[in-house]
């Protein structure tokens, strides 16, 4: 049995400057925040994020200057922050390359990558500026080498089989490392996600290397009693990390809710670089996962804790 356990710090060390990354989760749910914070502490640079959609983790990494290229379709904090203020600032200052696809295009790019196909045919977003040839940002930057970044942003092609009309062919995603955050992982790497699995299976399979951070590492044998409830197979996972509350301030089905107040504060404070730096000084640098939790405090975390019958918190204040 290969031992796949590593520490948070080791997980971040595996991710080198210049790597392309993708993540588990959806917008403000199940993002690998503890590893993201560790990457910022380790001052990782020149990352290329390729994700079905972004969220707070994107904003953390972008704000900290870790990211050169962001290929996706959306970033924000849902109702806790209308858009990605850090990304917005860096796009305005041309400190980052943004390549825009639609949400379904990104999902189909990952589905193609995960199944080993070089591209997918879809009929979404025809007639929009997503397909404006002048807006091929990776092309304009001369980065389309046909190796990890496709020669074309997309290609139009007609359906030869049923006359279904114009197809947009979108290139498979090619990703170095998937960084995941889930409820349970077995000692040998088997992942069980509870609730919606979002685009996690495709993210793990598309990436060349997969790191899974979990609330708990559980006996592999426990998960294998019900193989039809597992989400990702053992051999698709290279490294595992146990890190309770590792998704905070994002939420995790069955475990804890989104910390909306934390995200609101982050969004409000990090519109300027100075604001981000102050936030990072307070909540990222000089901390590790335990001291971060201590700083958050028991009251805050118990308030977010999910009711196990319902899988969400009944005590968290969500409204006005």
């Amino acid at each position, binding site marked *: 049995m290969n031992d796949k356990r590593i520490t948070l710090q080791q997980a971040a060390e595996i991710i080198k400057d210049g790597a392309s990354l993708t993540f588990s989760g959806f917008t403000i749910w199940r993002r690998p925040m503890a590893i993201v914070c560790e990457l910022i502490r380790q001052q990782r640079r020149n990352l290329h994020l390729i994700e079905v959609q972004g969220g707070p983790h994107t904003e953390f990494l972008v704000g900290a200057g870790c990211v050169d290229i962001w290929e996706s379709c959306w970033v924000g904090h849902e109702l806790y922050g209308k*858009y990605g203020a850090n990304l917005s600032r860096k796009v305005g200052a041309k400190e980052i390359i943004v390549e825009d696809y639609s949400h379904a295009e990104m999902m189909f790019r990952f589905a193609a990558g995960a199944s080993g196909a070089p591209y997918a045919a879809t009929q979404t977003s025809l007639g929009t500026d997503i397909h404006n040839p002048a807006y091929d940002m990776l092309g304009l930057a001369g980065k389309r080498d046909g190796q990890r970044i496709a020669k074309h942003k997309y290609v139009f092609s007609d359906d030869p089989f049923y006359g279904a009309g*114009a197809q947009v062919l979108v290139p498979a995603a090619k990703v170095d490392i998937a960084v995941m955050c889930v409820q349970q992982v077995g000692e040998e790497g088997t992942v069980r996600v509870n609730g*919606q699995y979002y685009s996690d299976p495709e993210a793990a399979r598309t990436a060349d290397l997969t790191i899974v951070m979990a609330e708990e590492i559980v006996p592999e044998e426990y998960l294998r009693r019900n193989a039809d409830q597992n989400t990702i197979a053992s051999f698709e996972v290279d490294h595992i990390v146990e890190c309770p509350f590792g998704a905070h301030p994002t939420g995790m089905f069955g475990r804890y809710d989104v910390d909306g107040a934390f995200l609101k504060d982050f969004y409000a404070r990090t519109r300027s670089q100075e604001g981000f730096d102050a936030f990072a000084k307070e909540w990222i640098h000089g901390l590790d996962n335990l001291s971060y939790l201590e700083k958050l405090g028991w009251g805050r975390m118990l308030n977010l804790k999910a009711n196990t019958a319902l899988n969400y918190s009944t005590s968290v204040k969500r409204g006005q």
Partner: protein
Amino acid sequence: MSKNYASAEEYGLADLLCCAAAREVADNEIVFAGTGLPMVAIMLAQKTHAPNLKLIFEAGTLDGRPPEIPTSVGDARCEMGASRASGLYDAFSIAQRGYVDLGFLGGAEVDQYGNVNTTCIGDYLNPDLRLTGSGGNPDINSFAQRTVFIMVHEPRRFVENVSYITSPGWRVKKWPGGELVPRQELYGAAFRGGPSAVISTAGVFRFDAGSGRMYLDTCHPGKSPAEIKGLCQFDLDISRVSGETLPPTREELHLIHEVLDPEQIFIPRVK
């Protein structure tokens, strides 16, 4: 049975929008909803005239019946009572396969053809403001039979040309040239429909089947057609106004505030 409509002081603009949106849904339809007011609107329809509508959340919830309003389609609340909880590949596959009747969407800018922008304000290559990006807006708008947009009405949002077409309306850009062509022409056999209504904070707008241009259908109570025309940078057709937007009923207000969104997450109480 005559409906028990609320009087003007009993409801707010968000209530009015929510009810107008709910009325766009027919029973038994499969509806794709994003976070926020659309979610409340659809759950309202589910509890009134459309008990058999099926709700799909983009993050991977099929036929959802959340017991509490989710604050995101990724929310843990989405799964409770759903037929199936899975992922985005499932949701978008179902949409592309043609299951979806109606999608509810939003936008920062809209033009007279229903082209919507959620990507940036100003030149894309030198943006004044980068927004969230497309999300599933163009996808749902490409795959559904019809879509309804809910928007804040300000002149800077109802514009002659949007900064960036994120989501396709009735006249869309044909690449590589970028000339505007009818949506039907570009989508070919994949054409299923397009924007059927825009519900703004001023009125309800629909689109002419021939020209693809927006016209004013109903004015919200207290707004005149001329006033609404003045809130658009393009030349709004106000020749076909059918009347005033129906106000919420007291039953609907009760459902919104006591059952669906008692925490006032998306819909504030007026009193």
